[in-house]
């Protein structure tokens, strides 16, 4: 389904362009077009992934190309859900370029054939992958919201009110949506880790094997658990919450890519190049 993949990428690109146009010219029609293109891209992308999965007979996360593609897809899904829930228009400025870049990177990647397709045929695994990817996508959005928060907070604190002051929404909206995306992300990766552990038991015979991937996943989970706990007890909101959301996402990036490339472990096949 190569052509569909390319058209989806082009839709994301155009959406990205419309978002930049919206940022500069503040015309509502650009923003509506951008969301429309994003939704179109997402629909095509879904078609492309499904057909790819059917052809391979398992979830398409066999190599880095497929993994990146699923990552972009998950971010688009979570972004669209958040957009329709919170009407936070400006977030597209972050999400659209991010998705576009991931898609372009995915397109560039070689596509080696899977070593052991049997490993991938399980419903537990499908649940594990979907929830982990959606969870990470939510954290990616939380990171973007954190950056936008810091940007807006900076203009208000320094009383500079430049380009972004009128274009970014209120601090409160950025903070609550950031919080909501962390709650969503945390719920998702919790389910993801549980299904992953169950699947590990099924295929390797034990729940936990101190593999670097497992350790770092646990670190990520604990990090976000601590973040949520502090918010609920000590009121970690605003600036601190925004910074933590950004750091948290860096930890995720390391868990996701760093572990595979630097530490090796049993998830290596998903980023095969």
């Amino acid at each position, binding site marked *: 389904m190569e052509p569909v993949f390319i058209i989806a990428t082009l839709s994301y690109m155009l959406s990205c362009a419309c978002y930049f146009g919206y940022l500069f010219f503040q015309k509502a029609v650009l923003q509506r077009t951008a969301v429309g293109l994003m939704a179109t891209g997402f629909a095509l992308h879904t078609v492309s992934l499904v057909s790819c999965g059917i052809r391979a007979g398992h979830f398409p996360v066999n190599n880095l190309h497929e993994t990146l593609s699923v990552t972009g897809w998950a971010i688009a899904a979570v972004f669209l859900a958040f957009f329709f829930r919170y009407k936070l228009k400006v977030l597209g400025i972050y999400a659209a370029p991010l998705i576009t870049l991931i898609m372009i990177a995915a397109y560039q990647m070689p596509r080696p054939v899977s070593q052991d397709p049997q490993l991938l045929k399980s419903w537990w695994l499908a649940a594990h992958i979907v929830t982990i990817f959606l969870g990470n996508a939510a954290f990616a959005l939380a990171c973007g919201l954190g950056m936008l928060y810091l940007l807006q907070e900076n203009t208000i604190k320094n009383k500079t009110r430049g380009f972004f002051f009128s274009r970014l929404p209120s*601090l*409160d909206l950025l903070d609550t949506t950031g919080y909501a995306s962390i709650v969503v992300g945390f719920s998702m990766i919790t389910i993801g880790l549980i299904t992953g552990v169950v699947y590990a038991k099924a295929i390797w015979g034990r729940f936990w094997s101190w593999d670097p991937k497992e350790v770092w996943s646990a670190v990520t989970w604990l990090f976000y658990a601590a973040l949520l706990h502090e918010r609920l007890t000590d009121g970690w909101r605003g*600036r601190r919450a925004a910074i933590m959301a950004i750091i948290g996402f860096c930890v995720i990036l390391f868990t996701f890519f760093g572990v595979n490339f630097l530490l090796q472990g049993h998830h290596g096949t998903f980023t095969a190049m």
Partner: protein
Amino acid sequence: MRDIVLLGLNHKTAPVDVRECIAFTAEETDRALVMLRGNPTIGESVLFSTCNRIELLMAVDERDAAVRIAKAFIAEFKKVPLSQFENALYQYVGDEAVRHTMQVAASLDSMVVGEPQILGQMKEAYRKATVEKTSGVILNKLLHRTFMVAKKVRTETGIGGHAVSISYAAIELGKKIFGDLEGKRIMLIGAGEMAELAVDHLIRNRAGTITVANRTFSSGVELANRFRGKAIKFEEIIDCISDVDIVISSTGAPEYVLQKNQIKAAMKSRRNRSLFFIDIAVPRDIDPAINRINNAYVYDIDDLKGIVDENIDDRNREAVKAHRIIDEAVIGFHQWVDTLKVVPTIVSLRGKVETMARQELEKTLVSLNHLSESDKRAIQRMTGALVNKILHEPTDYLKKDGCRGNKSVALDLTRKLFNLEENH
């Protein structure tokens, strides 16, 4: 053809005591319009009066006589000697009057450029004029155009954007911090016109409870009653601060009323929810170092003034665009006025009828091939004669003073009856 004449004074030409004397109340406006209608020298009139300006817009046949009569009328009606305000009066004629009217409606001539009330006030003045039937073809057209232009200026330029008063600037900032001000709790420390105005704005934005702290408890209670809030003792401020979202401070205290370490402790007990300080006092009440605490924001009077100045600059920049829009509209209106002149109307009327006759003639002659050349010429002559006969009376009527005084009505009607193009 009638001239458009505008006679008026505003905040730039007349001090407030003069404006007070000349201003027309709604009831006076009605009465004045009836009297103006009774005066044959003043053909059409619209009277527009606010606290910042009085404008009498007229369409008249004899300009100088009309101006003289209008001035005398204002002096007599308001029982103020003409000499007291004559110097403050400005007078615009023709295109200049049109431009001025449009600029006023688009709020380019206002004390605060871009303030939105003026258009509504002008529409009301025009409504009165239509009720009293003092505005006719010319002023109707002018004011319809003016309202369209004013709307265009508002939507196509940023002239009405962003706050240009201290209290509005504070509200705008509050919205950037809290999103929605609904239910946000306010604490007012001290008193003062600007601070109270800010509280009024906040209440209009459906803010929550108002707490008033004053050194003199009794005046605090009084103010609290006005805002339907509660009064607290000055010493209680720091205890109550964990329960409010916006603090407006305006006391005469020589030193800071709120210190950084106090707020730092308070932030903990309010679990870091945002706290917005608006410090209107000089010398300042709120320690500026508080701005460095996470989720606490301090804006003092200078910061707010800075925002206001910036916004005023923005508006003035946008005003340039607005002037361009108005210039275009003035030209458009001028073209319409030209059509009301007798000669162009007669020319285009004749042109229209002649074209129709020629077209019909051509159509008919095509199917009448058996006619000889001389027969065809005879039919052509007859058509020409018909056109002349038909147009003779209307042309005469328009040329001579058949329509008794107000020619523009007859011209406008002619244009409408025969659907003549405006920009002929």
